[in-house]
């Protein structure tokens, strides 16, 4: 019966979509005039994102049978390496997902198309997108990326577990001390600790630097905070590992945090590789919850722990859509992009999995429908509303050397700091971080 209802609902939705689909919001260019073409579309993601993105492309093809898609999905770790090789062959997909962190690097390499002319001609309608969100896709005078959805750093946690232990996690503004206290309690009662899974990412360091009152972790010249200040970041990790509840480098060596379905928040056979929380982003609750449901886990959401959470937290363009300079059909690609950003039906299909739609009219129009499809959407929206009033403006886009520093410096030092018996002091780690990053910055 349940299956039947689900099927009926799906059919009803599909029908209502087809009936309503006389006009897709594609801007001024008519894709029907493009002839038989194939558009490439590449993104990193997870299972939910893969499903909804394929559906949104299929829906476009239904309306414009002359346009088909070559879809290419990867997990984050493989995505950039693959796109780099495509870039070398001038073979990038027409539309690629981009990230706030690396956009400068890609613009500098000349791979992204400046969308300003299309906005001026009306082919790409950004009237529904707030100016501050549009600006996040600008590099210099050019507009190279359109925000696919707004999100914010979010600590996703095992609410089933905290409820069972009678622990109340604050809705927002979780301080580092509170975080440590909760973690200690859970570890003492259940042996479930914390897998600090952001080893090769600048995100937690940026959060820490912002908590100290800086806007950003680094700029074109190098690290902004002093070595002594950065030592504090490593000192926290070392102290927590010493207490046992933050799992050390050896314990988490076999843990995969990149593939959400394998993340220790929702997957793992023993408690010593399970974590009660994951440092993630608000939109990821959809995919995480999907994986967690199988284990009967309900997830909660709060902000990342920091000494000064309101200074540290920020709203972020979750991902961007960019059109690459390798495209042979820029007008068609822009029309498809316009559809992704402005079309209500498209955004119902996309289920706001990439974050709350940047077009605020669209966001309002889809809310009810998406909530029915995915209850986590409401949780993410409520959380973002809280963040809006408890955060500071986002940092500028990362300097182009950031990715290299992540791999070569941040990964190495977080491995060192999370050792059971650290071989360097927090002061040395802080100094090493500043020196190594500055060296990369100077040499880039």
């Amino acid at each position, binding site marked *: 019966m349940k299956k039947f209802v689900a099927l009926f609902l799906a059919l009803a939705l599909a029908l209502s979509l087809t009936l309503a689909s006389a006009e897709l919001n594609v801007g001024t260019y008519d894709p029907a005039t493009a002839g038989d073409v194939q558009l490439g579309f590449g993104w990193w993601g997870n299972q939910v994102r893969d499903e909804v993105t394929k559906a949104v492309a299929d829906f476009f093809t239904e309306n414009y049978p002359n346009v088909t898609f070559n879809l290419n999905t990867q997990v984050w770790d493989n995505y*950039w390496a693959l796109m*780099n090789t495509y870039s*070398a062959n001038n073979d990038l997909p027409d539309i690629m997902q981009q990230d706030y962190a690396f956009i400068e690097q890609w613009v500098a390499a000349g791979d992204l198309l400046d969308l300003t002319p299309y906005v001026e001609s009306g082919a790409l309608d950004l009237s529904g997108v707030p100016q501050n969100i549009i600006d996040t896709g600008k590099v210099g005078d050019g507009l190279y990326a359109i925000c696919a959805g707004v999100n914010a750093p979010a600590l996703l946690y095992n609410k089933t577990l905290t409820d069972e232990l009678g622990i109340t996690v604050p809705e927002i503004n979780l301080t580092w001390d509170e975080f440590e206290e909760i973690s200690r309690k859970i570890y003492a009662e259940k042996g479930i600790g914390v897998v600090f899974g952001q080893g090769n990412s600048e995100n937690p360091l940026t959060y820490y630097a912002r908590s100290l009152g800086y806007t950003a972790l680094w700029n074109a010249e190098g690290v902004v905070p002093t070595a002594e200040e950065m030592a504090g970041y490593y000192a926290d990790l070392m102290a927590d590992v010493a207490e046992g509840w933050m799992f050390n480098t050896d*314990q988490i*060596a*076999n843990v995969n945090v990149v593939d959400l379905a394998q993340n220790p928040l929702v997957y793992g056979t023993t408690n010593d590789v399970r974590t009660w929380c994951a440092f993630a982003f608000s939109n990821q609750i959809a995919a995480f919850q999907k994986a967690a449901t199988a284990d009967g886990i309900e997830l909660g959401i709060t902000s990342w722990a920091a000494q000064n959470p309101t200074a540290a937290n920020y709203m972020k363009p979750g991902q961007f859509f960019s059109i690459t300079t390798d495209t042979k059909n820029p007008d068609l690609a822009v029309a498809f992009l316009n559809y992704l950003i402005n079309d209500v039906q498209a955004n119902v299909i996309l289920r706001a999995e990439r974050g709350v739609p940047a077009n605020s009219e669209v966001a309002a129009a889809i809310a009810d429908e998406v909530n029915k499809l995915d209850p986590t959407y409401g949780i993410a929206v409520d959380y973002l509303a809280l963040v809006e009033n408890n955060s500071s403006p986002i940092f500028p886009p990362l300097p182009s050397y950031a990715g290299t520093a992540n*791999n070569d410096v941040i990964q*190495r030092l977080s*491995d060192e700091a999370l050792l059971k018996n650290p071989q360097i002091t927090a002061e040395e780690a802080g100094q090493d971080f500043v020196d190594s990053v500055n060296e990369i910055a100077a040499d880039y």
Partner: protein
Amino acid sequence: MAKTVVLRKKKRTFKSWLNEESTAGYIFSLPFIIGFLMFMVVPMGLSLYYSFCKYDIQNAPTWVGLDNYIKIFTNDKTFSKALGVTCYFALVGTPLKVIFALIVALILNHESRAVGFYRAVYYLPSIIGGSVAVAILWRRLFESNGTLNAILSKVFPGMAGFNWFGEGPAIWVLIILTVWQFGSSMLIFLSALKQIPRELYEAADVDGAVPFQQFWKVTLPLLTPTIFFNLVQQTINSFLAFTQSKLITNGAPRNSTLFYTVYQYNKAFPNQGKSQMGYASALAWIMLVIVTVVTALLFKSRSKWVYDG
């Protein structure tokens, strides 16, 4: 006489050219020659050039001379770490693998109907090789509550929950995998064992040699050329091993299982940031020199222990 002259002056048509034996030879070897040029010579030439460049594959390479090499040798701790891990893997794993292959080959060197079956079974791991499926299997086997610990903890209770992926044991997870894939060496040993003349054993029997003496004085010396061949081949393979490290541990923890080739790959195709293809090319050429030197040393040692009849 005049007739032969006429024959010699016969026009060399395209058809006759096609019928020449050397033409057929060239045509048949053409696929290899093209492949060799396209996939070996040209890429190697390019990589040699890139190794003197700063090259991120998105932008044109810029010449930096010996910078990459200088940086590798003076200011790259990961290089020495990865090289150390690879040497350890090659120098410990290879002899183990060869010895293991030899032992199994000796056991299977009997006339029995079941032997054929066992040979196939033991060869199987080598065929499935470094696949993704094996990587996942291996990770599950060695998990803290995995199959291996479940078995070991029955014998050694202390092994329950042992973390195989910690620094130290992790490299052994990879060594055990490579030893497990001993099949091809085993087959080579088996065929070599078959070629040892029976008379030698009969003579040893007459002289009163016990089986161990027969093995030590007859089998082993006659097998040394095969051992040498296996050793060279497997050593080179070990230095170039990639999939185990990439798929099972990805270098974790703390680069203690980071094979040289994986390090090189990470530089060429990093998961974030720009490619450092020039740097990676320099790393590749250093590896080529190292493998050449190791192989040369092995060949140099040949006269000391290999029995060439």
